[in-house]
């Protein structure tokens, strides 16, 4: 049991981060806070991939060094793409929030919904 909790602690952190992000996206009324939640949510996935790539005692996979045991580099490169996607999503989301603010004068979801009904 202790082994399950301590030995795989990075997976527990990834799951907690993901849930924090998920909660923020669902429960927060402020549109910017939702985007922050979105970022935490995506970052949790990066942690998951990086944890998966770790080999015990492994170093960076450098060809000319003496890396006999090295971490799997593929998840790292996948996460580079993941980071690019995350940054672009944030950019689009922030741009949208600016336009929402200009159009409605607020970024609180409950007020926006009230306006939508009229």
């Amino acid at each position, binding site marked *: 049991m202790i082994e399950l909790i301590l030995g795989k602690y990075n997976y527990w952190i990834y799951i907690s981060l993901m849930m924090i992000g998920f909660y923020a996206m669902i429960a927060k009324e402020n549109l910017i806070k*939702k985007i922050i939640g979105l970022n935490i*949510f995506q970052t949790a*996935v990066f942690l*998951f991939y990086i944890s*998966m790539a770790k080999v015990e005692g492994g170093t960076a996979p450098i060809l000319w060094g003496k890396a006999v045991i090295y971490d799997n580099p593929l998840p790292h490169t996948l996460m580079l*793409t993941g980071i690019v996607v995350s940054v672009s999503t944030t950019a689009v989301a922030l741009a949208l929030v600016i336009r929402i603010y200009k159009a409605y004068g607020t970024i609180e979801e409950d007020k926006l919904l009230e306006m*939508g009904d009229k």
Partner: protein
Amino acid sequence: MNIAGHLPILVIIIPLISAVFIPLLGRINRSAVCYFVLSVTFLSFLISISLLSMVMTSGRISYRLGGWEPPWGIEYVVDYLSGFVLTVVSFISFIVSIYSKRSVEKEIDGSKIPAFYCIYMLFITGLMGIVITGDIFNLYVFIEISALSAYVLIAMGKKKAALLASYNYLILGTIAATFILLGIGHLYMATGSLNMADLSKRLPALYGSHVVRTAFVFFTIGLSLKMALYPLHIWLPDAHSTAPSVISALLAAAALKVGAYALLRVVFTVFTVDFVQNVVPATKVFLVLAVLAIIAGSVLTIAQTNIKRMLAYSSIGQMGYIILGAAIMNPIAMTGSLIHILNHALMKSTLFLVAGSILYKTGIEDISGLKGMGKRMPYTMAAFTIGALSMIGAPLTVGFVSKWYLAIGALRANMWYIIPVILLSSLLTAVYCWRIIETIYFHKAPEDESMMTYNGHSTVVNDAPAGMTVPTLVLASLCIVLGFAAFIPVTVVTSAANMLLGAN
């Protein structure tokens, strides 16, 4: 150099590169942009057709990006299924591009038109990439390309509500994409591979593993959200109804279909029939969800008064049909499901283009405003009638073909209880479609001031410009032609269905 060998990459690269040049071209000559987009989408369509015919003569095409052998390198795969969906997507985007010239001029600010078309091309690139790729991480990247451009395109809608719809779609779409990414991570953890064909070989030995089952759950939830499978449809009505008319048509006719394609591809190619039938009870869950989607989608649609919103809601039920055929799990029902990808694309784009023409000419958005429209816009309304009849599933239209295959497939599988569901949903569809047809043809036009501008007659023929009416009529006539000549798509689709179901 052998061009034919490079067609699978060209179909992606040409729209992708052209997207970069559109803003530059827009600086020189803004009106040339639309013709450029038109020629690029036409080229993509030609390439898709030739890829499909190559598949039909010589079988599956595998293209290695940069010469790297799969499973190490990225592989692009054209088989019956991806060739078919690729052709549907590129054809719809070509027709919609013809239509877009006049419609976009009216709905988008002049200075934003080049930017609009740039994102539009990226959107099409993303959709075609999802279809053609054989690498599961590449699938994720293309899903994000198409999704990000879809958010931007929706936000370009005229109404304020478009911004909120786009924001909500962004949040939900990103959750979906992140779930897909997690699914990919779990699969990679279990197998160490990202190539779809390689995965399907390695996975059967690992079907007992919790990691693989978790991956499957992440994939199904993520992709169901992308294709708006009930009850994950909440983003769809707002997004599809507030987007510019052209984008509504593309979203409903191409983006949803590609979502369904991705789900079928992952469920049946990466995982197998054996997995979804015996290891996890996925087909049973899909069957229930599909039936719920069909009934609830139709009921929700009846309550709508806005034309575009009604069309958006009706997509929910129609996506249910696609999943229904896949969940019945026999070749005939699967054929019905795949042919519905083409059929729904044709009829829903017809209907959305009609809604766009009405908006262009009169600014009317509510169904009650359509009184007497049958005399004012006869060609547009004829297209609408054909599309609506097809939605109901009247014989001799494409809608009938898919319902016929689904019903026969259900009977073969001893699932007689599916037949009443299909009949009930056709009845409900008839209710919401007939309401509009009745308003168009049998209600007298109100003699109000807006009509007086046309020489004081309310019955003056005043159809949308030819650039909009002709593409709409082409799609509408295909609804009839392919209803008669259903054997043309069915031959392709039957092979695709047999391929998906593997040994069955």
